[in-house]
């Protein structure tokens, strides 16, 4: 059974990738033509292409830099200082990770869009030109919103090594004469560097390829990015050849990055950061340092969670949004309309819940069997299997969607909910595989072997020993997949059809009609996500730190 899951995993990767590659060298939909590079030529001759590539690269690099600095700072404050409320901050810093980037972008528009945002309206009467520089409809805006969203990724990557590094390494530097800042620069940073760099590479690839935020902030001003260009090429009049060529180039770039990242992690894996030794001493902050730490924490949580959510809730409760909130005119009309009068919502809620629950279950099952293969059966093959099966994580959702669209457009699966389910699972099963595999690594194989020697069959061993021991990882990755699937947009937007809309798709559809409706539905989706987060926080976020 484990090997079967590995084979399915391979097929889920090879299918869309091969379809995209093949489609990129076919120039006509209707007649058989010789393979040619005409699509790529068209791509290179497109004057908007250079702009799209530049913008996408700028997005990736900008987001990576900002979220790296923020993520490391927050992690350091939480695990290495003595400020009060550390435990709370430790969990709260993760909240943006669970929010939808598309909703985040919309909320930021409500909060600070040019001319119409809450801040703008507040400031305008006193200083009309103070906020002229603040234009969210730009690559800068895209970078800003994405950075807030991706900071927890870096935070999760570095918090583990930062917490578990041997305190003696730092103390040795201090005892031998290094000051605090020298120690941080010369000892602490290099020690967390492998974790930071591998996290940064993932953020670089995934943030650059994310479709949600550019759709909200770049498309309205006709600013080109690669994900929105792919979306554009699939809209009427569709040009699959062009989209496939664009997808092929992106796929090659992201796969190279992911493979590099994995090779890098492999070569640095067990560096000097070990669980042994003793925990590093917490740094006693000076009063000024304490204020600084609180300010950073408060600002991050305000920017990443509180302010945009406040704006979102205000908009959802106002009948006509003008940029100012009037508490005396609170109304639930938007919710009433979206929940009961708008036909799509209930259908979309059903679809989203079905996709998230079934997709997460399939994803975790596949990932568990694959992880078992990698850690217990694979031997030398496992060294290839794990990195290859991890590849989809680095591929943008819209490219995965495109791949399955091309692959399955002529099959009965097309325009059903199943094509979306397949795409969801194909994109994120590696997430489950990796967290379960990490936990399996820490389980002594003798625990299973003694069950076998006690007379249990393989299935009994799985049922009574392996699965119960893996439960924390299974629960955590199920909840994560659930969250990811509830907010998924990149693949859904290409694959949905009438009757298979998801909440995220309906949000985009509604955004052309009324701010209040979007906000009301976004709040609904948010409640689902935060519910999953609450469960997750209770079950222990520790699993993600591996």
């Amino acid at each position: 059974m484990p090997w079967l899951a590995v084979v399915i995993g391979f097929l889920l990767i090879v299918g869309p990738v091969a379809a995209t590659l093949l489609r990129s060298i076919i120039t006509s939909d209707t007649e058989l033509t010789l393979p040619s590079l005409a699509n790529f030529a068209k791509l290179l001759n497109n004057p908007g292409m250079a702009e799209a590539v530049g913008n996408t690269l700028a997005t990736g690099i900008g987001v990576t830099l900002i979220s790296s600095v923020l993520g490391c700072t927050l992690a350091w404050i939480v695990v290495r200082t003595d400020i009060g409320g550390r435990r709370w901050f430790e969990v709260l810093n993760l909240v943006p990770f669970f929010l939808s980037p598309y909703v985040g972008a919309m909320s930021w528009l409500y909060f600070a869009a040019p001319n119409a945002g809450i801040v703008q309206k507040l400031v305008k009467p006193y200083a009309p030109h103070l906020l002229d520089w603040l234009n969210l409809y730009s690559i800068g805006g895209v970078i800003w919103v994405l950075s807030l969203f991706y900071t927890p990724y870096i935070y999760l990557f570095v918090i583990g090594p930062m917490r578990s590094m041997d305190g003696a390494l730092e103390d040795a530097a201090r005892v031998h004469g290094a000051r605090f800042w020298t120690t941080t620069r010369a000892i602490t940073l290099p020690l967390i560097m492998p974790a930071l760099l591998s996290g940064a590479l993932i953020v670089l690839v995934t943030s650059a390829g994310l479709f949600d935020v550019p759709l909200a902030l770049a498309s309205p001003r006709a600013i080109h990015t690669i994900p929105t260009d792919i979306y554009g090429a699939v809209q009427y009049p569709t040009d699959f050849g062009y989209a496939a060529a664009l997808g092929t180039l992106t796929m090659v770039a992201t796969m190279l990055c992911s493979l590099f990242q994995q090779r890098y992690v492999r070569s640095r894996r067990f560096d000097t950061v070990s669980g042994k030794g003793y925990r590093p001493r917490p740094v006693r902050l000076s009063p000024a340092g304490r204020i600084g730490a609180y300010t950073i924490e408060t600002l991050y949580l305000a920017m990443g969670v509180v302010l945009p959510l406040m704006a979102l809730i205000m908009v959802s409760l106002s009948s006509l949004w003008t940029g100012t909130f009037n508490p005396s005119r609170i109304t639930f009309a938007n919710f009433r309309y979206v929940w009961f009068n708008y036909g799509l919502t209930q259908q979309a809620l059903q679809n989203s819940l079905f996709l998230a629950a079934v997709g997460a279950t399939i994803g975790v099952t596949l990932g568990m069997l694959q992880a078992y293969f990698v850690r217990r059966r694979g031997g030398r093959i496992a060294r290839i299997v794990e990195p290859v099966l991890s590849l989809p994580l680095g591929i943008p959702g819209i490219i995965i969607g495109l791949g399955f669209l091309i692959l399955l457009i002529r099959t009965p699966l097309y325009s059903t909910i199943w094509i979306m389910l397949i795409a969801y699972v194909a994109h994120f099963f590696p997430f489950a595989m990796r967290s379960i595999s990490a936990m399996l690594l820490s389980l002594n194989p003798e625990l299973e072997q003694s069950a076998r020697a006690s007379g249990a069959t393989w299935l009994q061993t799985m049922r009574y020993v392996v699965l119960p021991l893996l439960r924390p990882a299974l629960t955590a990755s199920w909840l994560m997949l659930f969250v990811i699937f509830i907010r998924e947009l990149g693949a859904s937007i290409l694959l949905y059809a009438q009757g298979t809309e998801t909440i995220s798709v309906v949000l985009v559809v509604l955004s052309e009609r009324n701010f209040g409706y979007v906000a009301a539905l976004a709040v609904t989706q948010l409640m689902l996500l935060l519910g999953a987060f609450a469960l997750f926080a209770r079950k222990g976020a520790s699993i993600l730190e591996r």
Partner: protein
Amino acid sequence: MVAEVLEPPVQRTAAAAQTQAATYVRVRGLVKRFGNYTALGGVGIEVAEGDTLALLGPSGCGKTTTLRCIAGLETPDEGSIEIGGLPVFDSARRIDLMPEQRELGIVFQSYAVWPHMTVAENVGFPLKVRRMPKAEAASQTDEVLELVGLLPWRDRSAMLLSGGQQQRVALARALVHKPRLVLFDEPMSNLDAQLREQMRIELKLLQQRLNFTAIFVTHDQTEAFALARHVVVMNRGHIEAEGEPRGIFRRPATAFVARFFGYNVLPGKVQTVTDAGGGAHAVDIAVGDGLRLGGLYYGTAPLRAGAPAVLCVRKEQVGLTAPETAAGPRDGRQRVPAMLRASSFQGLHDEHVVIAGGIELRAIQPALEFEEGPVTMTLAREDCLIMPDALSVADQKDIA
């Protein structure tokens, strides 16, 4: 620890029931390779029903691999394994039974106690997977828990137990389904010294009471000698020596075994060989810088003057006295001028480093009343064993 005696276990084969000393485990020509590395180079072992065998050797010698092959946790490349007359592995006949089909018990070095189960759930697991009715399984579990002294902890989570208690859980779990063969992989190496001695005795008593066949893997000669009636010494995937503990310790089969047991091993050249009666030869060999020592040779292969040989002598048999100018007392011991380099106090005795003829030796003696400097080293001829060369069985196989 007092406990009731378990019912006598059911005999698995008719043949085994007839002769008490019938071979219960038979391993033949076991070969296991990991890539280019040969972990086992054709190992053969036989263990009689109800007997205890220790596989002893340095780390990497293949003892654990052998045990895991018997348990079915590792698949050998060649050879055959029979347990209680039932072939469980045979490369020629393509037989390879799953671990759960081999009806045995195993205690791991890590104990492998399942942290998500209570003590009773851990111990009752082999009965549960055999679908024994619950009431019967519970009483049988309690019986074994009583036997290992864990009954008061039966509903405690296994995670809250001390190392020694976890070890008992692992032991009880390996015994609860009354297997006729129980395997132990370094069972004591995670316990502290005092607990280890206590467990050795308890384990020995348990084995005698329940009369299961046991195979122990250990790198500790004291443990092997204390637990097992037969010992197999392994080295680089080959068997160096086998026999009862006293025999193989007092007369090591090869220089490797001697060195492993802590003998001083001095390489040299044969000078004279004379018949000493009783199947032994008195041999004089030249070692180091012009030192000539005599010892006994029990081998059958002819030994010629000028051939390389080694002299092996146990640390306790290296005597040290104050330096003498005259010949010393006429006690028949060979006397050699030596230098005492260092002594370290080890409780009941001291361990000394001495240099004689440019060769370093270790001596274990009661504390001496003299300091580092010149001493006289004394050796009894009958304590010095001569062996033809320094090669081990593994070396010879490798050369062949």
